[in-house]
């Protein structure tokens, strides 16, 4: 027995949009089976994971807060993925952005520095991520080194750098020896009194609009799309592939870096190990769940953020481990890829010997 793929000729746009929804449903079913295998009630888990967070105000705010870094990183990554470049080190660029962006808030903490610190910090955060993403991009352009492995290796280096700084030179001397820096004065303001929503959330919708415009309405966006779908055509059309690699990596690095510094100045308020809970990797799932479309990724980020919040409450309410959320994210990504293939191809099961 074997599977045979027959390309479908006219795929309706609605089918392409519905594919990730079907994938989500399928992965929830698979997740339910996993939970049942663990001897728990899938119905109770479904309620805690997907229903309860949607009915409580604090949880809805928390979803928006968690979705923001995911969305920013995913939008950046979509430029790479569309151009068939595999930046899988967004996690490292996130951490580097947080690190470089924190320099000014750290230096000015406790002083009467003006309101310029915060915008400068955000800018430096984006720059930090950008420069860090430039390493795999330049290594690829100059030496032909696979960007997949270099970008991933740099995640470990970034994590260790953060670890070194918060345990060593940047440690808060009054912090009872905890590996953490002083608390920043330069923080993103809250959008509403007493809420959890900070001004950094505004970057999400802005990024969606800008990304949509760049991808659909600019020559550069066109070049990114063409070089992903047909590198040869892109070269004949005169797009410089090297410049495209560097540009795509710069965008995704800057977005991840911005996400990093927004996370720090938006809600954490200091540097410490574990400022990222795998946002850089989770954003890969978000990017594909949103089919690399800015609006799609907005929904994707909200859905994945929902599972993160749901996972945290499930850990408390049902004693379900957090690893369940990670497993689910992996299953979700697989289902999204499979659903996309099922939309593009008709699968025929051939049971006889080949004709």
């Amino acid at each position, binding site marked *: 027995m074997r599977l045979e793929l027959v390309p479908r000729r006219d795929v309706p746009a609605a089918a392409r949009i519905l594919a990730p929804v079907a994938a989500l449903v399928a992965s929830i079913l698979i997740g339910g089976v996993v939970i049942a295998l663990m001897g728990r009630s899938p119905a109770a888990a479904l309620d805690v994971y997907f229903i309860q967070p949607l009915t409580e105000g604090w949880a809805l705010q928390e979803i928006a807060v968690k979705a923001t870094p995911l969305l920013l990183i995913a939008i950046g990554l979509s430029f790479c993925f569309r151009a068939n470049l595999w930046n899988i080190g967004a996690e490292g660029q996130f951490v580097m952005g947080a690190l470089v962006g924190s320099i000014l808030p750290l230096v000015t903490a406790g002083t009467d520095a003006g309101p310029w610190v915060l915008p400068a910090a955000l800018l430096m955060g984006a720059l930090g991520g950008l420069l860090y993403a430039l390493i795999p991009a330049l290594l690829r352009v100059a030496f032909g080194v696979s960007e997949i492995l270099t970008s991933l*290796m740099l995640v470990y280096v970034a994590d*260790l750098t953060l670890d070194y700084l918060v345990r060593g030179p940047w440690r808060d001397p009054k912090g009872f020896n905890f590996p953490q820096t002083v608390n920043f004065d330069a923080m993103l303001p809250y959008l509403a009194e007493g809420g959890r929503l900070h001004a950094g959330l505004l970057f999400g919708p802005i990024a969606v609009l800008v990304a949509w415009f760049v991808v659909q309405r600019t020559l550069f966006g066109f070049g990114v799309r063409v070089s992903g779908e047909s590198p040869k055509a892109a070269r004949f059309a005169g797009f410089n592939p090297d410049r495209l690699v560097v540009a795509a990596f710069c965008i995704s690095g800057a977005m991840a870096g911005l996400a990093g510094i927004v996370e720090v100045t938006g809600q954490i308020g200091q540097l410490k190990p574990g400022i990222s809970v795998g946002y850089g990797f989770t954003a890969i799932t978000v990017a594909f769940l949103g089919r690399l479309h800015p609006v799609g990724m907005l929904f994707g980020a909200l859905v994945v953020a929902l599972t993160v919040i749901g996972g945290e409450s499930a850990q408390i309410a049902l004693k379900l481990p957090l*690893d369940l959320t*990670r497993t689910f994210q*992996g299953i979700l990504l697989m289902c999204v890829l499979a659903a996309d293939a099922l939309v593009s191809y008709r*699968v025929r099961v051939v049971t006889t010997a080949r004709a």
Partner: protein
Amino acid sequence: MGVTEAILLTVITAATPLLIAALGELVVEKAGVLNLGIEGMMAVGAACGFAAATLSGSSLVGVGAAVLAGLALSAVFALLVLGLATNQVASGLALTIMGLGLSGLIGAGFVGTNRDAIPPVYIPGLTDLPGVGRLLFGESPFVYVSLALALGILWFLGRSRAGLTLRSIGENHVSGHALGLPVLRVRLYAILFGGACAGLAGAYLSLVYTPFWSPGMTAGRGWIALALVVFASWKPLRVLFGAYLFGGATVLQLHLQAASIGFPSQALSAFPYVATILALVVMSVGERKATGAPGSLGAPFVPDR
């Protein structure tokens, strides 16, 4: 036991999981498939291996469970990239994300459990030989398996007809298909072999190397194994050489950390990752293009009928 002997033993210990996983991936990539799921399969292999060995009390059952776990995960990957022609990079990443989570679920009940490591081989007389006895005749069984794998794969790829078929499919699957070669079936077997190897490498980590299970214990070894394949220009003996070189670098770093020569420990911990990047750069400089990558590596294959 002399100092040199002790150091060489630890180098081999550090190199063996990398070697086993990288050899498996080498075969997969030679068939034209890029499986980025090694890290995930290794993690699940380590967790399943430890769980099964603890529950059954038999190390052999543990090893078997780890291999089966690697096989099962790679079968899922094969279903995606071969059955549905999905993007290999994204599918492999999904496998790693899922595998790391799954390993946590499986291993959660075994944190803090200890069991005796699988003992090294002991051959009366030979193992007791001064100087080289332990080194040549007293290694872990995994070490001999890994060396046999390296030689077996060298023979298979270079000298056997099936190996030639596999290589030609990896080089150009369109031509292979036109010649009537079973592209997808060969790739399926290659992927399953790679999964079994990754599971076995995971078993080595939790049953010999540590020997306990802890979350995130693979620590990027699956990714380093992937880099080793590139570093070795897709040649089995060079994978062997690269793995031992890398094992040596890891041991050197551990010794430097123990000696505490004023370097921050994090800089030394970062060393393997930086070294991997540098090794990849060195390999690419000069050779520029002809690094020996299989021609169809990473490209999905949909046969036209």
